[in-house]
């Protein structure tokens, strides 16, 4: 007798559970306001990317055209794909000390996997991830970028 009762109980419990699931999807069906899709090309002007989104590596410059890169080469060593090349030159300072100065920070966007290791390991916080993502170009050479702006110098306080 008990097994017969359980058989029917099982059926009604199962139907109730199924209806619960259908209620959720039915709610979403009749509430189009819940749609989360971003209609991208149309909303380009108002598109807000997430804070954690990593678009490309950039080197911030302040208003005096100064960056913080000391050309130490740690980002180049840490990059798993070899997408960073640092070209530096040795200059003699007025006291006669040798000093390494950045001439070109070359970044190959086409090889980058956006792992963020260069940004994380930079001892002077000279690099950061930008949120731009429209990187498509017709010529592969355009994906090789020089991150330091022409004529920029190391900012004074960065070396301490």
């Amino acid at each position: 007798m008990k097994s017969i009762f359980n058989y029917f109980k099982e059926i009604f419990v199962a139907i109730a559970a199924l209806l619960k699931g259908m209620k959720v999807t039915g709610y979403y069906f009749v509430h189009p306001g819940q749609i989360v899709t971003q209609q991208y090309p149309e909303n380009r002007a108002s598109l807000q990317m997430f804070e954690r989104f990593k678009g490309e590596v950039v080197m911030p410059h302040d208003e005096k055209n100064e960056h913080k890169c000391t050309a130490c080469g740690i980002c180049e060593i840490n990059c798993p794909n070899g997408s960073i090349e640092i070209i530096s030159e040795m200059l003699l300072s007025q006291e006669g000390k040798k000093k390494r100065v950045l001439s070109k920070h070359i970044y190959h966007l086409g090889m980058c996997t956006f792992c963020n290791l260069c940004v994380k390991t930079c001892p002077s916080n000279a690099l950061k991830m930008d949120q731009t993502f429209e990187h498509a170009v017709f010529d592969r050479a355009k994906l090789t970028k020089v991150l330091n702006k022409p004529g920029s110098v190391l900012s004074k306080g960065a070396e301490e």
Partner: protein
Amino acid sequence: MKFNIYDLSSFTSSFDQLLMENFSPFWAVAIEMILIGIAILAFYAVVGLYLVYAERKVCAFMQCRVGPNRVGPYGFFQTIADLIKLLMKELIPIKNADKLLFNLAPFIVIIASFMAIAAIPFAKGLHAIDFNIGIFYIMAVSSLGVVGILIAGWSSNNKYSLIGAMRSGAQIVSYELSVGLSLITIVILAGSLQLSTIVEAQREGWFLFTGHIPALIAFLVFLVAATAETNRGPFDLAEAESELTAGFHTEYSGIKFAFFFLAEYMNMFIVASIAATMFLGGWMPFHVGGWVAFNDVMDFIPPFLWYIGKTAFIIFIMMWFKWTFPRLRIDQLLTLEWKYLLPINLVNILIMAFVVLMGWHF
């Protein structure tokens, strides 16, 4: 030629007379068959394409997405673009496949669903062929599709296809029972297998309401079993993407794949229209006994729209199933049929026979 949207039988019979006057009977029948064939073919293509569109939209809304929205307004021409793409794609020949059976299988599947459409009553007079065993014929013909699926799985020379096809076979053999028995419940109530008589018997009230509890149980059982029979929704073990890549149609490409795809959606349309005809009164308007003004308003809506509306409702429920429930395992699938649906169905037939004998239905 009179054209009356509420009763198309005068239109079809006067058209028949016109042909009979101008041609010999053989040619008149031949022309009628060709015209009906072309009409059904066009209907088949349009309905198949727009069911795919509807499915993608319904699924998108249920998952908080937008769905196709690029080709035409609201993505309305998306599936037509897809069809053109499929038509232009290469038909890849498979090494070591059974060439004859491999090429035959999509046609078997599509012919099975094509034949079933012929016996469906769309509106009063809009009924290609009215067999006196109509519902039996539809059940027999629509389950032929599984032969095509089995052949497709076997001839592809691919283990995933074969597993998918065998699963589909096991599934259809068991669920065909439930579909048939739940329809027999209604046939007992209607006292006829002829679809026009069954629809006519629902003039005063749809069988879902006049047959009360046994009809309601039969309706629920039919919905579950029909979803399983079309290889859809939580019962799509035959093509289980995550396990079998695409099941029986893994090796098919281009238009042959499109045939399987269209046939799947047409099978859904066919079982939905069987459900609408048997339980929800086919093209009969919704009537409440005694409410004359209300019944007149309902009569004003053409029968064809009633039919399409009911079918769309059933199709929506089946899509709702598909995008809500997770896929069953094969043992759960067979347990559901043999331990639950079948015994309930058999008892339900007894109850229905008793109700009809005692005259307890409305």
